[in-house]
């Protein structure tokens, strides 16, 4: 499955392609199956080495951990598919969480607080999107600067103190169960399905893939590519906002620590391991979510094995480079 045939040899026979596999249409089957294969391998390895890993309660807690990373990986995937990159997701997420939490600390309603946690990240995402699409700025620079601004602002407004003692109605609802399923997991599952459908089955999704594959062709064909790019960044802001709500509830507090720079490593590693191309035009929401689970499992096993934090950074950085290198070689 990992071997890639020459492009000339592939398609001359009819191929049944299932409905959720846009990636399979575009770059052969590798980017579709690879994340699942990797997930199985990592899962088996982890279950061999980590005691009690296979218990249900542990599985659930892994999935809850993975949920916030999965949401951000999906947001990142959409931006990557459009041909850009969003390095500001952690900072945007933290700033949204902090403002929402501060609002609740002052006695504000949790519902409005949740709205604040969504709206602020969306606005910041729109600023990213506007800069990249309409002002033709380089995504890397814009979003790196935005990460600096938001994570710096997060420290300034909190004085490095985390905001806790949030109302039970907030944390309880978000961390509660619906039909026996924890809300964070349910949210990820529902959002993944909706976004997957939009990506693969709606005209907006097609525009996104077309823009990321070849923006010149997209423009000549009448695709509003600038609008598409703008919306991609706004969407990644929205995903950062949803993450802010879930993470604040899980930690029962909001702090500038949430937006630390190293988080972007996990987000991009999740998307890349999930087969989302950093060169645009390829990837799906489901795969990005699977990539997030893989990264969380790797994090957990390294934690268990008492691997130093700095070594985990080295390992995750290496994973990104290997996966992106495979992608680059395949595209030549």
């Amino acid at each position, binding site marked *: 499955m990992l071997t890639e045939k020459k492009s000339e040899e592939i398609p001359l026979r009819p191929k049944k392609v299932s409905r959720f596999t846009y990636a399979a249409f575009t770059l052969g089957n590798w980017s579709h199956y690879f994340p699942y294969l990797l997930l199985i391998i990592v899962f088996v390895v982890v279950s061999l080495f980590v005691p009690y890993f296979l218990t249900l309660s542990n599985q659930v807690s892994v999935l809850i951990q993975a949920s916030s990373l999965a949401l951000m990986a999906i947001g990142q995937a959409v931006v990557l598919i459009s041909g850009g990159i969003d390095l500001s997701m952690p900072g945007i997420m933290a700033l949204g969480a902090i403002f929402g939490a501060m609002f609740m600390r002052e006695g504000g309603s949790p519902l409005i607080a949740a709205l604040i946690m969504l709206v602020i990240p969306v606005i910041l995402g729109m600023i990213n999107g506007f800069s990249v699409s309409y002002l033709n700025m380089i995504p890397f620079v814009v979003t790196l600067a935005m990460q600096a601004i938001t994570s710096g602002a997060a420290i300034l407004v909190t004085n490095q103190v985390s905001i806790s003692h949030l109302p039970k109605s907030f944390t309880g609802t978000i961390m509660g169960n619906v039909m026996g399923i924890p809300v964070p997991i349910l949210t990820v599952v529902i959002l993944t399905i909706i976004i997957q459908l939009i990506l693969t089955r709606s*005209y907006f999704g097609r525009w996104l893939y077309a823009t990321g*594959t070849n923006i010149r062709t997209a423009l000549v*064909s009448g695709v509003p590519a600038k609008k598409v790019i703008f919306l991609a960044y706004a969407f990644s802001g929205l995903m950062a906002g949803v993450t802010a709500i879930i993470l604040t509830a899980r930690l029962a507090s909001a702090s500038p620590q949430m937006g630390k720079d190293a988080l972007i490593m996990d987000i991009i590693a999740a998307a890349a391991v999930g087969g989302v191309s950093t060169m645009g035009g390829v990837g799906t929401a489901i795969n990005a979510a699977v990539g997030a689970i893989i990264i969380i499992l790797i994090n957990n096993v390294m934690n268990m094995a008492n691997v130093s934090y700095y070594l985990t950074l080295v390992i995750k950085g290496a994973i990104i480079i290997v996966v992106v290198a495979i992608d680059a070689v395949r595209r030549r």
Partner: protein
Amino acid sequence: MTVPFLRMENISKSFPGVQALKGVNFEANQGEVVALIGANGAGKSTLMNVLGGNVIPDEGKILINGKEVNIHSPLDAARHGIAFVHQEMAVLPTMSIADTMFISNFPYKNGLIDYKTINKRCIFILKRLGCNFDPGTKIRNLSPGSQQLVEIGRALLMDPKIIIFDEPTSSLTSHEKEHLFKIINSLKSEGAVIIYISHMLDEVFRICDRAIVLRNGETVGGGRISELTYDDIVKLMIGSKQIDQYYGYKQRIIGDPILKVEHMSRKGVLDNICFELKKGEVVGLWGLLGSGRTEVARALVGLDPIDTGDFYICVSDKLEKIKQSETKNYIGMITENRREEGLLLPMSVRHNMSLANLRGLTNGFLPFIQNKKEKELTQKFVDRLDIKIANQNQRVETLSGGNQQKVIIGRWLQKNPIIYIMDEPTRGLDVGAKSDIRNIINELAESGAAILLISSEIEEIMSVSDRYLVMRRGRIVKELSRDATKEELMLAAAGA
């Protein structure tokens, strides 16, 4: 006459699918300006790239001063005193004049670039070119004409004995042009061999001593300019081969105007373009390379900005003014770069063909694409255009050029606009695919669409057009009817 200073003997070169040069002989003497003339694709540039070391010929030899030389790289060429002033300037906008001139050959002193020497030589050469810029001036602060002078200065740096000018006037104002001619004349009087490639016959008659005409990779004639006329040269350029001009052409019923363009201008590119397209009409937009044909097409669909210009389109029964950003809703654009701007190469035939019509594939309420509708429409146009594919999921990069082009046409047929712009729609296609595309153009026109066709192949444009707009230097200089001859078209484009 003695041995010519430069002699190229029996030069042949083929590229995949095309024999660019077929045993060309070329010679030039010192103190002479030789014009190298030919239509687009005649082999002028390839021949000069052989001399400049950018292209290695399959056969043939080059003699300078009677001695055979081996030129395998631009560096070899420079060593033999050959300088090439390119048409497209390879300038570095953020660097200074001095840096640009010496970029490949910085003199060093004590391990550092010796700017003292550089500036001295730079000023000397700029003086020779009659300009007094400071060598530290950034290239981006110069006009295109002055940038061209810097490029010439770079060529003169090596004290060349042979200087090739490839379309040097295409970005110059008339004042700058006069200046360039003066420089060429002074170089000539200093005994250099000057080879002047140009489409512009008036320039050739102005400054050249001798002309050599290429056609389809062969030398077809030439002689002393004083003994030639415009007509002689045009006849040599296009040849006497009688083409089937009326290939598949039927007199069509031409309706009312559906597109009107007025005063479309963009500084330095397009100059007051005005024209109309009528229902059921194929208009050939004819001109030589760099005349602004493609720029008209791109501005028309909003891909390039314009300074001024009004667009009118006939939606129901009368022309209504629309904005530039709206024109693309009515126009299907087939660009000259199939792979770079036409296709989503790694994607499937179906997704490529539905790209322009995605909103039309929804149920109008939800944004989701109806699979069945998409498949049916794709199949309809695959059949109608006779596109050879294994199935609709085949990646479009695996198709032949002709089938790829049909995929792009099919994309627009799905959207069904009232106007089509086709920029070099048959470039790089084989004879069979070319005639398929021509048939499609005719069918489209008969079905009532208006088509603006751009082509470098005069036979092609003549086989389908109902009338011609001839462009030169960013302007529409002439409108010709279908009865126009090849000679008339070529003369109008070459500026006689």
